[in-house]
């Protein structure tokens, strides 16, 4: 008689108890599947925000600018950015390039000083660069290339007290370290996914930004997205290009080094895995409980099998197999259910705006859980492994029973 068959039949012996065990494991696996889907969504979100708005997948910037970044060292630029952009786009590893001119500025409203950060972008190129540039527009439209128009983050607009059709004047420091004031016409209101950007950012055409900042043909930085290549490959390719044909003195930085959200993710990853361990242990305790009760109830049976000459290892394996089957059923059910719940959420998302209200993090207010098959499969095995490990200890007890004692019960 195969152990596996006996184990399977024994599971159906006490259906309610088996169901309880399976349910406990399933609940844990379900929760963790959802949790990791959420984490994956956060990871994707951070990546999306970083690549589109903050750092690109790889960023080219003047090394001296990076060094004195805090000082807002606008005098350190990426020279001749247009030709550099063309050269980079020609590389097979590069998909799109978004040049940027950053304008750290301040606006005045009555007695109020309102800080703002202008981002000069090549609007035409940016439509290709961004995943969905039009999508951020809530009212009005994007500025026309070369115009004095601008689109404001909606919170910035509110703080400035302006609407479409108004003009705003900003004060800034130029590349040559002089002060300059410039005025833009508000043609659109934007809702950036990241609240922080909403509060402080406005977008304008790069040509005008270059003019206001006296940049000439230089830019503050180039954001680069790769053509489906790994970040390290992209970094190497771009670095090789600039090393070979200039400009000199550029830093080519991968986003993982720059993005604060990325560092947070690393930590979150570890923390979530520990939480997962707790959850699985929890679910497994019911299996442990069940196995213990099962062994207790079948003591005489164990004694009989021992009397018939069943070896210790075989006895342990019998109960261990039972527990493993329960673990498999529970983990599978949990992971499948969790995936089923996460699937629609991938499209509708979860609204975290209430939580993000007062907290200042560079996460979007809408988070979309992302199902990742690799991580789902890993969750299944993680859950199963914990269940199996946990049930091993009570299973061992089956073998330590003395046949004489067992038979007497």
């Amino acid at each position, binding site marked *: 008689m195969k152990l596996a068959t006996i184990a399977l039949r024994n599971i159906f012996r006490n259906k309610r108890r088996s169901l309880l065990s399976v349910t406990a494991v399933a609940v844990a696996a379900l929760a963790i599947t959802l949790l990791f889907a959420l984490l994956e969504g956060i990871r994707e979100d951070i990546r999306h925000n970083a690549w589109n708005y903050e750092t690109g997948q790889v960023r080219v910037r003047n090394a001296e600018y990076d060094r004195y970044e805090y000082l807002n060292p606008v005098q350190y630029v990426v020279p001749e950015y247009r030709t550099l952009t063309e050269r980079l786009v020609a590389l097979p590893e590069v998909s799109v390039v978004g040049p940027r001119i950053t304008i750290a500025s301040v606006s005045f409203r009555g007695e109020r000083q309102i800080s703002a950060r202008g981002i000069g972008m090549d609007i035409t190129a940016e439509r290709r660069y961004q995943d969905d540039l039009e999508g951020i527009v809530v009212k009005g439209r994007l500025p026309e290339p070369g115009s004095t128009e601008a689109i404001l983050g909606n919170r910035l607009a509110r703080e400035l007290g302006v609407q479409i059709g108004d003009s705003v004047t900003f004060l800034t420091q130029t590349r040559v370290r002089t002060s300059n004031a410039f005025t833009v016409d508000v043609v659109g209101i934007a809702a950036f996914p990241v609240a922080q950007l909403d509060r402080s950012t406005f977008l304008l055409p790069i040509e005008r930004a270059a003019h206001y900042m006296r940049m000439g043909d230089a830019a503050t930085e180039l954001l680069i997205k790769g053509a489906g290549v790994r970040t390290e490959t992209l970094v190497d390719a771009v670095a090789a290009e600039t090393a070979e044909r200039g400009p000199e003195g550029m830093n080519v930085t991968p986003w993982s080094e720059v993005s604060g959200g990325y560092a947070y993710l690393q930590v979150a990853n570890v923390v979530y895995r520990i939480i997962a361990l707790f959850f699985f242990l929890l679910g497994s305790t019911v299996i442990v409980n069940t196995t213990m009760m099962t062994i207790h109830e079948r003591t005489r*049976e164990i004694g009989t099998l021992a*009397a*018939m*000459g*069943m070896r210790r290892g075989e006895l342990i394996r019998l109960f261990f197999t039972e527990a493993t089957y329960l673990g498999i059923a529970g983990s599978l059910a949990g992971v499948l259910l969790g995936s089923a719940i996460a699937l629609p959420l991938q499209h509708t998302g979860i609204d975290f705006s209430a939580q993000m209200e007062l907290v200042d993090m560079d996460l979007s207010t809408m988070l979309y859980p992302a199902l990742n098959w690799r991580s789902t499969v890993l969750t299944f095995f993680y859950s199963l492994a914990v269940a199996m490990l946990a049930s091993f200890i009570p299973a061992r007890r089956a073998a330590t029973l003395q*046949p004489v004692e067992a*038979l007497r019960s």
Partner: protein
Amino acid sequence: MINVTDIHKEYIDGETSVRALRGVSLHIAKGEFLSIAGPSGSGKTTLLNVIGCIDTADSGGLSIDGDRINGAHGVSSRALIEIRRAKIGFVFQSFNLIPVLTAYENVAMALSLLGLAESEIRERTTKILTEVGLAGMEDRRPAKLSGGQQQRVAVARALVKDPLIVLADEPTANLDSETGEAILKLMKSINQRIGTTFVFSTHDQMVMDYADRLCRLHDGLIESDEVRRSA
């Protein structure tokens, strides 16, 4: 074939220690149909357990078919398991069948443990089930069998592996007298036809009457040991 030499066995029951066997010596030849009788606490179950290698004596010797089991150093429980697997069959008072297995599977289990080929298992199992009179009941689970039928399955399970000895601890205690007698008749007939050695532990007079030889135990020692012709 089985030699028990001056076996002592003491065990702890709760707070007190009980000297179950105080120097029992016994020789059992092949093919015997032997009954060990005595009041409760006389040590007959313990003696059976020692002979059946479910328990080890504290001192004294046991040899089965020439192999020394209990020596001065005792023997590992792993070795005992192997002996039980191949050479010893048990029949219990409360049948002790595996509830999730059918009659056939319960019997076949004993052979699976020996790692025999599927065809041989099938042949021997069906044969022994017919011998004990359960042809046609192979696919029933113990819950669907009467007490007598279950005990027949147990007997079949004990016999299917062609053991050196079958040990039965009060096999008729949970059966009414008619069924009990039928079981006894079955075991006696197998003993006479095939020559399997049977050792019973009992205080049922009917069992004693069927035995060829009767050992009486009292307070851990053999009181009498007489060979008799059965009914």
